[in-house]
């Protein structure tokens, strides 16, 4: 099983769902204020107390190969997805429009997801997390369920989990002991996995953000983009090109001198508070390199991040399919529901067909990842499908609603903007 019982206990005992009656939380949502157009120094943030490592880092076990073709999630997975879907429908969906307007996700929403233990799904039990085994499939199912509510807020909620997962998967013992306890605590640090750089034809294996070796460590220079809630973030895991070594992940605390955050409001995902992270002669110590800086770790990080984006596309795609299915049956033209016309009905059928196809390929990639099989090919294919057909679903969704699809009275135009992100984002989320 991918998840320990601890997760289920935590979800089952979470008071949020019963007590707050969910919807109410969104009415009194507290935001930091509109988040566009600022340029500030990194959040002063907390001081992470350095802990000296005592040996080998803890790693999650792989899931074993069952040998049986099966599309049924485990009972644990069904339960987690059930709770998150409810949260997604009752909280994220109604809050989506407000969150988008202020370019941020409310503190209540973030607090609720950390209460579910979202950050902890990939942190080993011995480090305060909730997991026994590695489950990329659970990660995909969770991303899908969140994005069915709202992709922007889903990304904001998953961003700290991405950093926690990275440290848990590749960090040294010292790094795990230094950072992970905070992610297992009550006050989870806002944090972001920053890989992308703002230029056309960006390739995560050809980074322009550099790390130059000095006597005491490294000096970092460059600009990263697609950084989730950058102005709040206290910890970054950043993709940098280490001189003579190639792309590597490095830990950067936001209070480090030379770290600047610039708002980068984009076409969609506005609730994720996308920002740029500007690194100007930022000095970090030699042990800031995540783990041993293995090229294979970086490669795996890119793949798992793309997998998470594929998972998000599945959720938003599902939202479109359900929404247009209702719409075409109730909207009439020429005296009957437009669903009675093949030109309309076939578009809906094709949305369903492509969505199911990309879902299966994404799940295959995830199940190979957690079984320790090579999954480079499957991730590439899932990314291609979710990018191509995810966007097709977005644009057809708007088309099916006609003029109604183009206005903000319906959420479909937001899904259209969000779905464009899927094939081009790197980093930010991780399963």
């Amino acid at each position, binding site marked *: 099983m991918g998840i320990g019982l601890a997760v289920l206990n935590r979800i089952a005992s979470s008071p949020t769902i019963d007590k707050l009656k969910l919807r109410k939380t969104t009415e009194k949502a507290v935001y930091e204020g509109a988040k566009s157009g600022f340029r500030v120094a990194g959040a002063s943030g907390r001081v992470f107390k350095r802990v000296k490592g005592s040996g080998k880092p803890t790693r999650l076990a792989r899931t074993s190969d069952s040998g049986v073709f099966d599309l*049924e999630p485990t009972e644990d997975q069904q339960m987690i997805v059930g709770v998150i879907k409810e949260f997604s429908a009752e909280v994220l969906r109604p809050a989506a429009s407000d969150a988008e307007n202020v370019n941020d996700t409310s503190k209540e929403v973030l607090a609720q997801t950390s209460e579910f233990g979202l950050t902890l799904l990939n942190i080993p039990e011995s480090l305060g997390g909730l997991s026994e085994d590695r489950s990329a499939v659970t990660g995909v199912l969770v991303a899908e369920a969140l994005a069915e509510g709202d992709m922007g807020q889903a990304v904001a909620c998953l961003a700290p989990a991405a950093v926690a997962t990275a440290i848990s998967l590749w960090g040294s013992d010292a790094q795990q002991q230094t950072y992970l306890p905070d992610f297992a605590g009550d006050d989870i640090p806002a944090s972001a996995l920053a890989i992308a750089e703002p230029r056309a034809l960006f390739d995560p294996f050809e980074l322009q953000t550099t790390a130059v070796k000095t006597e005491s460590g490294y000096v970092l220079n460059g600009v990263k983009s697609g950084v989730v809630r950058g102005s709040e973030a206290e910890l970054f895991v950043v993709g940098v090109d280490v001189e003579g070594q190639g792309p590597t992940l490095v830990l950067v605390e936001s209070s480090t001198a030379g770290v600047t955050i610039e708002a980068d409001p984009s076409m969609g995902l506005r609730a994720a508070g996308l920002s740029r992270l500007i690194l100007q002669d930022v000095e970090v110590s030699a042990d800031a390199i995540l783990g041993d800086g293995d090229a294979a770790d970086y*490669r795996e990080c890119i793949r798992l991040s793309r997998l998470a984006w594929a998972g998000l596309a599945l959720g938003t795609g599902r939202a479109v399919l359900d929404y247009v299915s209702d719409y075409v049956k109730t909207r009439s033209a020429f005296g009957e529901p437009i669903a009675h016309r093949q030109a309309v*009905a*076939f578009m*809906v*059928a094709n949305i369903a067909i492509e969505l199911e196809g990309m879902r299966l390929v994404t799940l*295959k990639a995830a199940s190979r990842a957690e079984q320790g099989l090579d999954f480079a090919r499957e991730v590439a294919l899932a990314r*291609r499908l979710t990018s191509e057909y995810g966007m097709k679903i977005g644009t057809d969704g708007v088309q099916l609603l006609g003029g109604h699809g183009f206005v903000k009275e319906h959420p479909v135009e937001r899904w259209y903007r969000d779905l464009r992100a899927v094939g081009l984002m790197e980093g930010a989320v991780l399963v």
Partner: protein
Amino acid sequence: MINLETPRKFRPFIKQAHQVAEEFLRANSRKYDLAEHSYPKELDLLASLVDGMGDSGQGQGAGASAVGSRDEKDDQAGKGKVKNGTNMSSVLSIIEMCWADVGLLLSMPRQGLGNSAIASVANDEQLERFKGTWAAMAITEPSTGSDSAAITTTAVKDGDAYILNGEKIYVTSGERADSVVVWATLDKSLGRAAIKSFLVPKSLPGIRVERLEHKLGIRASDTAVILLENCRVPAENLLGNPEIDVKQGFAGAMATFDNTRPLVAGMAVGCARAALEDTREMLAKAGVVIDYDRPAQTQSYAAATFIAMEADWEAALLLTLEAAWLADNRKPNSMEASMAKAKAGRVGNDITLRCVELAGTLGYSENELVEKWSRDSKILDIFEGTQQIQQLIVARRLLNLSSAQLR
């Protein structure tokens, strides 16, 4: 637990099927593409091999009659447990066979679509009586294609027999098979519910092959026009229930398709895989490197196109396996079967054609097989329900609309 790898218990059998397919089918691919209508005698030996495997229970559903089979033993053994059964193994086997040659697969003795129909709708007595027959399937008529409910071939009860009259076209293996499953109506005024299928042995007087078609692809497979003129068929050869149940309507006859559509999807998946494999080799020789980690848009057009084709292929494969998995686990799969057929049919055709384009005059030439696969693949988006019919089925299910609402 979610896992989309090939079931472990089928892996050795698939390897075997692949070797057989390579030796018996692929090796003779071009020969029978060029010699349309000549009997592929190499298949006789293979067919007896498949029969033998079926009889000894080692076939893992290698044959056409395995789909939708009611395997009681399996049912009890697998109660409450996820099962990978004969629907899955049949699809996997067909993928290997069609990787080698779709036309020759369709020409396999005793593995006709009629055999799948018998397996799906015949009663136990009929299953026993028709064992070992090679049954073709006759539905389409000159003026009735996708609207199979509108067929005009009639069956009139006369004592202990039915008298069949009509013309059937596009009967796969119509000449080589020794019997034909014929769709005919008992009473045109009662619509779909009155359509029944009959197993008509070709030895009976009144049934004959009128001519064979010359085709774009799958030339190894014979496609016949069959005439029924006062053909007297024993009443006990009516497959399934002879009563006209207006409530149940077409469902019985259509049930066959839920089982055979994943198989045809599997044919498209196998054929497209062949094209992808050869094209990959040809591209490699031309110096194209395909890197799954680097963004496709930073790679060559050929590499990006290849990744895009592989992605569509993988989606088609998994949709096909999903439809089979649902059937094996006794879950409704009508919509998923149509999804698989729609996706596999269109991408199978698209992939093979694009492979020819990438390979240039090399791919267009008869020196390579990819041009042949791009001709073969077209039929897979047409027979057993066209692309448009599949979309219609998916849309009706999805939107919960009747055939009167969404026509």
